[in-house]
Each structure stands twice: as C-alpha cells, then as structure tokens.
C-alpha cells in the first residue's frame, strides 16, 4: 500500500483511536520503511524480523497513544517506539553486541600527582561498591557495566525496566555520596577522567 506522508498528528491519532484499519496499515508501512533504513547494512534483523517488529510496534504504539506529548511529529515518536521494540527483541535474543559502557571511556595520560588522585578515586569507589551497596544493587550495576542488556537484567530479577533503572540510579547516588565524602565532586571526577 502507498505511504501517506502528509497525515498530520491529529489525523494519525484520531484514526488510530477510532481503529481505522487503513491508518494502522499506513503506520505499519511507515514503521517497516523506517526500520529497514535503521538496520540497513547491519547483520541483525531480516526482512521477516522487520515485519514482525513493525507489527509488535504498532500494538505498543496503540497502547501508548496517551503518552504522546504532541511536541514532535507523531511519526518520529512512533518510530522511536518501533526502534525500542526492535532493539529490545534483538538484545533479549542476543542478536546484537551489548551496548558497552566501557568503550566510552577515553584513555588518559596524566601527571604523577593526578595519577595518585585518580588511583585514590578508584580505590574509594571500589570500597564504596563493597560497603555501601546492597548485594542486589552491586550485582545489577556491575552486570550493566559488563554490558548485560537491561531487558535481560530486568527479566532475571523479575522487575520492570523502570524499577531496574531506579535501582541502579539509587546505587549511583549512594556511590556519588561516598566519593563526595572522600572529597571528590563531579567536577573533580570529570577532570581526573578527562583526556590528557
């Protein structure tokens, strides 16, 4: 079927709310096209996967319509959900490499004084991980750093992804308080970790 690129936000939402099949079909069509572009050249999903993801995303979008804030094009918002649905499936099935947190860390070369400070920061942090976190917080935070997908962790712990985020957020806040007690604020941490 042909795309309807010019539907405005209200037309999309009213059409989907009213259960008009041609609007839902147009949405699925746009999702398939977007997902195909998003994953072109990657060795992840096949055409049949994309069909499947677009179907699941359409259902999720319908469930989530009331969360649309109206501050963007409807299709951009819908596509974000399409990507989330697809990536969650790919991560759960271990079909994409984990989104590593470690790669984001630049290597650094620093003066001897700041190397000492740097070592102290990491020692304080290692100590706080041992002493200030609950075993569950510790295990979850370290697993995240190892690149275990959030969807896998949430299922392992039997919690919703939002609850998982809150758990690791609380853990980070505890660690932040611990390193602040040792005299490291956010700026000094950034400075110590900065590229030379």
């Amino acid at each position, binding site marked *: 079927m042909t795309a309807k690129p010019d539907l405005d936000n209200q037309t999309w939402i009213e059409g989907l709310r009213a259960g008009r099949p041609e609007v839902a079909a147009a949405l699925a069509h746009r999702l398939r096209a977007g997902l195909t572009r998003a994953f072109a050249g990657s060795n992840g999903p096949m055409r049949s996967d994309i069909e499947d993801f677009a179907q699941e995303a359409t259902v999720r979008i319908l469930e989530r319509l009331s969360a649309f804030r109206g501050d963007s094009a409807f299709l951009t918002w819908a596509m974000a959900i399409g990507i989330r649905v697809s990536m969650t499936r790919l991560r759960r099935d271990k079909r994409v490499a984990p989104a590593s947190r470690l790669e984001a860390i630049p290597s650094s070369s620093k003066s001897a004084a700041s190397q000492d400070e740097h070592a102290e920061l990491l020692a304080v942090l290692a100590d706080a991980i041992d002493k200030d976190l609950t075993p569950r917080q510790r295990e979850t*935070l370290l697993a995240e750093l190892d690149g275990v997908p959030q969807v896998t962790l949430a299922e392992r712990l039997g919690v919703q992804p939002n609850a998982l985020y809150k758990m690791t957020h609380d853990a980070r806040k505890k660690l932040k308080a611990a390193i602040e007690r040792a005299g490291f604020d956010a700026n000094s941490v950034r400075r110590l970790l900065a590229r030379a």
Partner: protein
Amino acid sequence: MSMNSSDPRLKALARMIAETCDLELTCDELLDRVARYVETLKKRETPDDTLALVEKHLRLCPECREELIALLRAEGVDPASVGISLTDD
C-alpha cells in the same frame, strides 16, 4: 569481592557517577521525549533547556544512545552528520 582498582568498570562507573543527579529520566521517560530531540538535531538547532535531561540520559545510557542512532538512521539522518556517535565524546 573487592574490585581491583585497575578494573576498567571502575572508570566507566566513575564517569557515570559524575553525571548522576537526583533528577534523571528513566529509559521509558526518554522514549517519549527523544522524538523532539531528534527533530532538534535534524534542524541543526541547539537543544533548549527542556532537552537537558534528555541529553543527560543519553550520556548515561548506552542503550538509549544506540537507539537514538538507529532512530536517526530511520529518519534518514546520518548520525555522524549531527555529531552523534556511540561514544559521547
């Protein structure tokens, strides 16, 4: 089991802690706000203050950053052309 201070996870964690605030978006909250961020990037506009929480989450969360890159591609935008990559430097 104390972590060895040369464990690369410690540096990654320290960096995350430098970004940690009391008020952060969850991945779910990010999902409903990232579309406006993408449109801002597409128009080459500077993100306003209300997108600061979005940018903060994207610095903290590699999964949402990965999804942002896929979303830009879905929208026909080369992520590198708007300064977005998997690492946030």
